[in-house]
């Protein structure tokens, strides 16, 4: 695997910016009431989806969580159609039926965010099963938070994947919080990697650094493609914002929030790219401007798109 090419490095930066800016925009429009339901943003955690999805092709699979915009974007989702879904519009990926918690794009192997904590883990495992069954060399990725590792679904899925040596990478984004409670409420272990010992699954814990994640994910994806079975990667990040947009975070305290925000995987990466001269200041500005415009365009598209008609509600239940 080794280090990413310059091209990949720039692309990773672009994608991280895209996730950051898209979610900042989402927070804004949500606060205005343009988006309904629950909105969980992953700001501060952009490194993981980008580091991992950089190793995936469209044909590879990913199943994610309620906090899944980043993964969808990193896996290449069409921003316009995704925005339309978030706005609940007719042209959205799910025809406006489902919103943020259920973004999916079959054409790019995005098997869906999930409103059920842990729900996506065995589903992604099923995708890995299908890849092995068909002897394609597709790989599946399952992302989830540290809280999700308390669910039986996590345990049952990893056990099966280990037994069958399925081509899957389990990525636990340990952002320190599950809803309104800290790590210590959810487990008595320091690192989620300990969970993998129960299945003899190799595991590694990485900091919230896109290049480190890229490296470990590369090994894990390679392992999976070679038929050597699953890997668990823990990414130690911090949640910048509340559990959902609108969460006042009384349980957390302002200082802790501010402290979390001092750790910025995007800014760190940007600095590194500038220092190593991989990008120049003006490249960075250009990228940010381009992405800003792309997001603006997507939001405008979503805004102008009509809502589904009521009659469409009854369509398509059965095939």
């Amino acid at each position: 695997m080794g280090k990413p090419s310059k091209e990949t490095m720039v692309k990773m930066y672009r994608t991280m910016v895209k996730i950051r800016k898209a979610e900042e925009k989402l927070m804004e429009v949500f606060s205005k009431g343009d988006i309904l339901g629950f909105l969980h943003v992953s700001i501060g955690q952009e490194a993981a989806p980008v580091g991992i999805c950089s190793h995936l092709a469209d044909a590879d699979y990913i199943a994610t969580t309620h906090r899944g915009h980043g993964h969808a974007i990193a896996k290449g989702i069409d921003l316009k159609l995704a925005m339309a879904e978030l706005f609940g519009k007719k042209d959205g990926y799910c025809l406006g039926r489902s919103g943020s918690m259920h973004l999916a794009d079959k054409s790019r192997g995005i098997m869906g965010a999930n409103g059920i904590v842990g729900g996506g883990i065995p589903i992604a495992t099923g995708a890995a099963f299908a890849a092995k069954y068909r002897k394609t060399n597709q790989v599946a990725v399952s992302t989830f938070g540290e809280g999700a590792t308390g669910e039986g679904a996590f345990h049952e899925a990893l056990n099966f994947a280990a037994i069958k040596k399925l081509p899957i990478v389990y990525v636990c984004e340990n952002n320190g919080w599950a809803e309104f409670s800290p790590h210590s409420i959810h487990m008595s272990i320091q690192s989620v990697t300990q969970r993998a010992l129960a299945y003899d699954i190799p595991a590694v814990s990485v900091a919230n650094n896109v290049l480190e994640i890229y490296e470990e994910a590369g090994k894990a994806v390679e392992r999976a493609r070679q038929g050597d079975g699953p890997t668990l990667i823990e990414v130690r990040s911090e949640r910048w914002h509340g559990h959902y947009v609108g969460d006042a975070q009384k349980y957390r305290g302002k200082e802790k929030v501010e402290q979390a925000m001092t750790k910025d995987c995007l800014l760190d990466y940007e600095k590194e790219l500038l220092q190593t001269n991989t990008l120049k200041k003006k490249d960075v500005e250009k990228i940010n401007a381009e992405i800003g415009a792309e997001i603006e365009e997507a939001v405008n598209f979503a805004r102008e798109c009509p809502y589904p008609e009521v009659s469409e509600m009854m369509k398509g239940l059965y095939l």
Partner: protein
Amino acid sequence: MKDIRYIFAIKEAMEEEMNRDENVFLIGEDVGLAGGSFGASKGLYEKFGPERIVDTPISELGFTSLAAGAASCGLRPIVEIMFMDFVTCCMDSIVNQIAKMRYMFGNQYTLPIVIRMPEGGGLNAGPQHSQCLEAWFAHVPGLKVVMAANPYDVKGLLKSAIRDDNPVIFIENKTLHAMKGSIPEEEYLVPLGKAEVKREGTDVTVVSASRLVNESLKAAETLSEAGVNVEVIDLMTIQPWDRETVYRSIGKTHRLVVAHEAVKQFGFGAEIVASVAEDILDELDAPIGRVGAPFVPASYSLEKYYVPNADDVKKAIMSTLERVF
């Protein structure tokens, strides 16, 4: 009397019962430090501490079965399932263990457990966060199933549920959490197993529960202007339900509409209708009417067209009235 919100009435009920009986405790995700996802236990952690307001890992099966074990040993757990949709993760605990443990072990054990869960739409939270599944539990021998339509009832019913020695599935409705109502300062109970005629009428009986009771009352108001006299019955307890009150009303109005937020097909309304058709069919002067959500998953952006409301009840009433038999 004092004004209080539904969610706060829930808190008062739990607090009073916890004061009254040290065996009562609350367990669930984020019920402690955070005071509950919907705020039902706000302040209780500070008052009762982590021993009695127990935050859990995300593990509905684990902590619901844990409650079964704790109850077998003499405690009186209140379990909070954050959204009713998540009860799918602990059906084994509830159906194979909790519902059966008393009967199956020859009455050796009592299982005084209340499992609270909010159901329904109102938050545009989409297909996995809006379901109404009470009919499932009503089909399982050994469980009581309770639904409360307003702050007064929710407090009185929850207190009764906590004191009841049987497992109780206690279903709240998310849109009702913010509802205000008037309740006495002093302690009161609302009994389980009894329906209440929430509005008297002579032309048609609407049997309902939870939010749809309020919608039915609205529909009744509108129709009263048109000279139609609607009787609205709030079942409050779905299992075991109060046949007497329902049958008495039908004996008077000879017309029946059942209304719930759950999808209409195979919903609890079907059982009411089937019992009527079995026991007192001859009392009916017209085909019955049914109100429930359409047979698709709950919708995100079309939620307001999905969730049944007063207008749907009104239409069902009108159509029943138009038909004779």
